[in-house]
């Protein structure tokens, strides 16, 4: 069956009333969560995973809900960037540069509309890219043996720190923590129990969903308790929207360039959305005529927004086809897939085409919904921003607890969740990133399994690890991914920081 046909079948799934409803709910919740300063898309998806479980949704509905949350969070991130100059997450940082000045000039509504349109273009074209690239990559599936998989996972770990990671050493500590937690349970390759203390609930290891919800959602609660941040953000008045067709055409080239660059950086494991929005912004500044970058140029809003939304869809390519997440949020989505008994990776496209294509179609639908929601209804979201967290946090905690309990119906899991919450709080205090912990838990067992399999196949000969062109290629990319950020990462981060500081001065 051709790609187009499969995509059409996907639309049949995505356009069913049930799917549309979940796409709409996801889009609204995602935008809201993305808009709250500090709660990025990874947290957003982490908080809403339990919701999918407590509602007892089917795998397809859960994924449609969560991908819409994901897309929505990327949209929402720009609201607080533009209005308050507080980025909702790291990729939204570049949007502050021109978005906030526009707001200061009394053009907040235009800035929000511009960014919504650019976000749509970014997501739309990147999703088209996903449709084209994913089946090709999935076709490579059969070429991956244990040695190649091992190299691939090594690559994922090597690029963990990524271009924008602050401290490679802390990233390593976090990944090691994840690997350690992952060793609990019955070892698949030998049938031996590790760290289970004959406790039945530990036989299958520690569910990463519990870790995710604890680390991200519950630690957020502790931060809230600490800050007593009971009040909402100050109300921001919005001017009346005046956006002509000419204005939209003006930002078109910038959005298209941003979409492309974002998609490419999203596909590369480890690079992710921050790089996408940064590269898009800098390129735009260079290729466009002089303009007023940094002082409220609409193209300076459009480029990074298209970039970070493009990267969001691009990151789904390695996640769906190879089972290697390209960003923190996709890592959370990957955990969700595994928990639903769906094996991500090359076989997904052959085994569950209805699910994959349904989700891809849902991305298209979700983006359209987001555009329609975001342009006329932006005022509502701005109002929602001022809901005091004291009402929001209890709801989050309730959803998290009910959801985790409904996965296995065991109170022990709730203790674990709180334990992970405390751990997440401590780690965030000492600035150790949380995403590598999750990646370590997710990929560690796979990496171990594939190394052992490779060595069994070669009767203990380690040279099998570099035995094929594909694995050598993967090792080379891994080496580049590890070394390049050390060389260029500092320069890049300094640049990002400088352009931001230059603005606030």
């Amino acid at each position: 069956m051709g790609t187009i046909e499969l995509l059409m079948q996907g639309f049949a799934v995505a356009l069913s009333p049930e799917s549309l409803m979940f796409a709409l709910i996801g889009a609204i919740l995602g935008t809201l969560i993305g808009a709250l300063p500090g709660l990025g898309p990874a947290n957003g998806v982490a908080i809403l995973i339990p919701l999918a479980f407590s509602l007892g949704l089917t795998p397809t509905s859960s994924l449609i809900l969560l991908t819409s949350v994901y897309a929505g969070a990327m949209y929402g991130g720009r609201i607080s960037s533009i209005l308050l100059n507080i980025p909702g997450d790291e990729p939204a940082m570049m949007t502050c540069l021109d978005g906030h000045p526009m707001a200061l000039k009394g053009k907040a509504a235009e800035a929000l509309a511009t960014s919504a349109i650019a976000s749509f273009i970014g997501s739309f074209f990147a999703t088209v890219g996903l449709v084209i690239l994913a089946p090709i990559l999935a076709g490579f599936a059969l070429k991956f043996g244990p040695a190649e998989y091992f190299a691939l996972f090594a690559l994922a770990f090597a690029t963990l720190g990524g271009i924008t990671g602050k401290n490679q050493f802390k990233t390593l500590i976090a990944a090691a923590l994840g690997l350690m937690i992952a060793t609990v349970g019955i070892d698949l390759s030998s049938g031996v129990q590790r760290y289970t203390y004959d406790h039945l609930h530990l036989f299958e290891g520690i569910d990463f969903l519990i870790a995710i919800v604890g680390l991200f959602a519950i630690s957020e609660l502790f931060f809230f308790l600490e800050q007593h941040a009971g009040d909402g953000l100050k109300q921001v008045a919005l001017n009346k929207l005046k956006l002509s067709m000419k204005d939209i055409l003006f930002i078109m080239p910038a959005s298209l360039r941003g979409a492309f660059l974002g998609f490419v950086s999203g596909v590369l494991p480890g690079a992710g959305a921050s790089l996408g929005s940064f590269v898009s912004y800098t390129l735009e500044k260079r290729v466009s005529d002089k303009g007023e970058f940094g002082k409220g140029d609409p193209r300076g809003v459009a480029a990074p927004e298209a970039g970070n939304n493009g990267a969001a869809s691009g990151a789904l390519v390695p996640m769906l086809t190879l089972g290697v997440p390209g960003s923190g949020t996709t890592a959370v989505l990957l955990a969700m897939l595994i928990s639903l008994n769906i094996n991500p990776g090359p076989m997904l496209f052959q085994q569950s085409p209805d699910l994959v294509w349904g989700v891809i179609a849902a991305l298209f639908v979700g983006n359209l919904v987001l555009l329609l929601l975001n342009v006329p209804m932006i005022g509502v979201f701005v109002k929602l921003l001022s809901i005091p967290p004291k009402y929001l946090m209890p709801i989050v905690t309730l959803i998290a607890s009910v959801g985790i309990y409904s996965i296995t119906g065991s109170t022990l899991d709730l203790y674990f969740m709180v334990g992970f919450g405390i751990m997440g709080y401590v780690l965030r205090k000492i600035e150790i990133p949380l995403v590598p912990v999750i990646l370590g838990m997710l990929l560690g067992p796979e990496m171990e399994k594939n190394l052992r399999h490779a060595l069994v196949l070669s009767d203990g000969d380690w040279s099998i690890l570099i035995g094929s062109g594909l694995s050598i290629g993967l090792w080379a990319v891994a080496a580049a991914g590890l070394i390049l950020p050390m060389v260029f990462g500092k320069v890049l981060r300094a640049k990002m920081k400088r352009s931001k500081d230059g603005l606030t001065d």
Partner: protein
Amino acid sequence: MLKTMSVKSVLIAGTAALTVAGQAYAYEPARSAECIAPANPGGGWDFTCRSVGKVLTDLDYIKGNVQTVNMPGAGGGVAFAHTVSKRAEDESLIVAASTATTTRLAQGQFPGMNADQVKWVGTLGADYGVIAVGKDSEYTSLAQMIEAIKENPGSVKFAGGSASGGWDHLKVLITAKEAQVANEKLPKIRYLAYSGGSEALVQVVGGHVDAFTGDVSEIKGFMDSGDLRVLAVLSEQRLPEPYDQIPTALEQGVSSIAPNWRGFYVPGDASQDSYDWWVNTVNELYETQEWKDVMTKNGLMPFHRSGAEFTEFVQNQTLNIQTLSKDIGLIR
């Protein structure tokens, strides 16, 4: 909140004759029943509970509904412990089980528990084991492969979807043992454990691992596309279409039979009357057209044991697995 599925009774006119209405039992089933699936939604046990639950209510064996409760953990151990310790007398509870359950019981992976602590009701079909190779493999028959193993047990590497010592691994060992491969060579047969049959299958089709050990339901796609050569199915007779071209191990001179059955147990202290009711219900259910349709739709093969016969079967299987696991040094 537990994940539940309530199925509204939809009574098809023609099936009314098959209902329990006319039968006299000392035990009257409660209005609704509960089926524990000892895993997350989407797996085999979950399927067993939901499909049996649906047919039970559709045919009015149970007047209310059969609620499926997912209780994952320890490969069924959490549900087994729960049944033994907290629900020992519950007469409207059934728990889904399969060969994986007996395997773990045999290998002592449910600490302090054994097969005698529950009452085994019956099976409603099975998935038979297969041994297959990629289309470019040097092996064209089971005999050839066995010869290679006899010469050098490490020469054929198997991939399967269960853990080491799990059912997919045991199928290879059962077959090798039946084919007179010496006991001391059994632990040297290489088995690569994957987290699912499909993952293992891709590795074999991709030419990375020599042979696949799994269930017949897992191979259809690659068998049809011609990427997989199925050397033997581990059943007593040839399976119905589309699997009728696969030779059994038996007709190749190796009497290895490995059904991965799907069935139920009930709590150990449930009354004899309620146990009899469940056994009888499973017997009747197995004969209905509704259940035959479920089997065809989901690739389940005929395999039915119930009551005392099933209990004996479970005991024998557990014993055999224990012996085999000792042979390969997995347990002492």
